[in-house]
């Protein structure tokens, strides 16, 4: 598949074409902050964004969604399912967020298929934007989830900002179809353009401010479960949901009904393991009674259980958890500290 250059002067035209048959989700300014939202015109797009505070994966796994409506009819119930099959294009999604979707896929189409998630996922086209300048909290290169993107990551197209033009790389048939539709807007990319992209990718990776070495981490954590280290580390945690709600890989949810007389709906919404009542059982027992247990659970789920189960950590190194943490808890420091605990013991 031939890579293309689209001059920035024609990018509005490109977006217009995308808008023909899909709802385009792109970074816009909302109350002074960059956030991915459906756009009505290409002019709304704010190109100077870094990593948005809220990940655009919220359009695949939304904060809340109505699963179905129910209505009592005599002795029976009438159910109306809400499968979302709107065609969407997420324009400008960062490589780390694209990679997080691949991890969510494992959860929502593994043993059981989740029709709500999958319908959204299958109806969404991903046009990624390569990162040229990592943010202060980024460590995606530790996972290979950025700053560049390979064909396997799951994006349909990858854009690279070359100053005057966007370099467009095609990864999928869906991406190819788009590029065929907009063929008149671009020019074929040269090998010099390709080299420039490679140079930028290397440069971005070398500017990554943090690294996390996963080597030996699950094994170290295996020895540390009862360690006082977790008491010490979790003392400052405020048990809010900023880190989990902003994490593009955190997928825990709650399901509840809202009823009014004979009708209502079943809603699924995000939940956070850091909340005090997350693990509360009916009858009143809470197996994770304090912040120590909930914070430890978050770390073990992401960096031990997931590595053992799936072969990878449930983290893409986007740095949002650190950016948002009211008390500056740094996941890289916490995990490196855990490893060094075990080294000290040995």
């Amino acid at each position: 598949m031939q890579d293309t250059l689209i001059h920035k002067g024609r990018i509005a035209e490109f977006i217009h074409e995308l808008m023909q048959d899909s709802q385009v989700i792109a970074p816009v300014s909302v109350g002074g902050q960059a956030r991915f939202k459906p756009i009505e015109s290409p002019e709304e797009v704010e190109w100077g964004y870094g990593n948005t505070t809220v990940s655009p994966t919220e359009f695949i796994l939304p904060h809340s969604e109505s699963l179905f409506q129910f209505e009592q009819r005599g002795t029976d119930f009438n159910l109306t399912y809400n499968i979302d099959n709107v065609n969407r294009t997420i324009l400008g999604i960062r490589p780390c967020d694209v990679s997080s979707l691949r991890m969510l896929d494992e959860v929502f189409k593994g043993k059981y298929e989740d029709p709500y998630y999958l319908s959204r996922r299958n109806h969404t086209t991903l046009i990624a934007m390569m990162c040229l300048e990592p943010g202060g909290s980024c460590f995606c290169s530790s996972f290979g989830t950025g700053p560049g993107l390979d064909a396997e990551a799951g994006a349909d197209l990858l854009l690279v900002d070359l100053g005057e033009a966007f370099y467009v790389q095609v990864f999928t048939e869906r991406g190819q179809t788009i590029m065929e539709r907009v063929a008149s807007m671009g020019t074929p990319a040269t090998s010099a353009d390709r080299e420039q992209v490679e140079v930028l990718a290397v440069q971005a990776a070398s500017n990554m401010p943090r690294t996390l070495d996963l080597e030996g981490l699950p094994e170290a954590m295996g020895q540390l479960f009862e360690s006082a280290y977790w008491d010490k580390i979790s003392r400052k945690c405020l048990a809010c949901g900023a880190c989990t709600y902003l994490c593009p890989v955190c997928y825990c949810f709650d399901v509840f009904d809202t009823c009014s007389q004979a009708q209502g709906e079943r809603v699924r919404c995000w939940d956070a393991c850091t909340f005090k009542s997350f693990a509360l059982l009916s009858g009143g027992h809470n197996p994770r009674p304090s912040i120590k247990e909930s914070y430890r659970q978050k770390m073990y789920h992401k960096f031990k259980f997931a590595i053992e189960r799936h072969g990878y950590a449930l983290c893409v190194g986007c740095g949002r958890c650190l950016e948002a943490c009211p008390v500056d808890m740094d996941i890289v420091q916490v995990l490196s500290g855990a490893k060094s605990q075990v080294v000290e013991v040995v």
Partner: protein
Amino acid sequence: MTHTATQVRGLVEVVDEHHPEAERVPVLTRARSGTSIMVDTEKTERIRERVRGLLSEGRVEYFIGYEAGSDPLHVSPSFVQQTDEVEHLVWNLMSINNLVTYLKRYRKQRMGLLVKGCDSRSVIELLKLHQVKRENVYLLGVPCTGILDPKKVAARCNPAAILAIREDHDLVFIEVGVEGRTDEPQVLEFEKHDLLFDKCRSCDYPNPLVYDELVGDPVPVRARVGGKFEDVEHLEQSSIEERLSFWQEQFNKCIRCYACKNVCPMCFCAECLWEKRDPQWVTKYPNPNDTFTFHMIRAYHMVGRCTGCMECERVCPVDIPLGTIFKKIEKDCLELFDYQPGLELDVVPPLSTFDEGDQSQEDLLR
């Protein structure tokens, strides 16, 4: 002279200590390789010395202060339990967290706590509301000359490129790595005032109002630029429809992470309505009505209680200007009851008492 900061890319490996001051300013190397945090040596040493004393004398079980954070722009709360951990404690111009919020969790233990002027006001209000026993808290007060707002710094230079920050009187020097060069970082110079948190720019109480001892001499109140309630007055002048649409846009950003509520030292309910599951009174998802109610309930409960530490606004990941709500409450409380929370221990909060001279209900609802 103030230079305009230019965007530069971060470098990873840069050697510390390139200023002549390096000898007298200790540099702590941080997790993000090549970066360093500048500490106020004198205050830091005093704090460490006193905490060592408090712990070894058994006066406190824990001392909560600040330690170096994830990068030069941040510090992090530090819980010190043993004398050999005292070396973690630092004081510098990024020491923003209001550590009083931890009192609600450890109220039965004897705690030592580092408080700035603003933080000390939260202690006063908690004492009045019988949330903490004075004898359980040992307060080490720090006279504060203002704290830098990481967002204001980030707006002027790429945070990933910052290697070190230091201050000299009213100037702040930020060292940034320069692309393609590893030997010589660029030093940007800023007026400290431009980088301070808004609350510090209009701070009336830089010196702690309640403390057991002070670390350093009291400092003068900073000359104020502009009115304290400017943003509130600006909103008050707009129509009710404009105000509604302003707050709707802001609250629509809310992800209900509850960072604002959890960081608040005055939000001390043992069981929070918003997290209660049995019965579950409110939805967990960001239904606009519930989100609006959440913020308004918090606001109403803070009348005569909120001391304006602005931690809620600082920690909001989606930048909702929550401080404006609490400033409005502070302003109303001042106008209606001539009361400012967190100043004097023996003045009863307005909603805990009734006075025939209080404004009428009509005045309140106007």
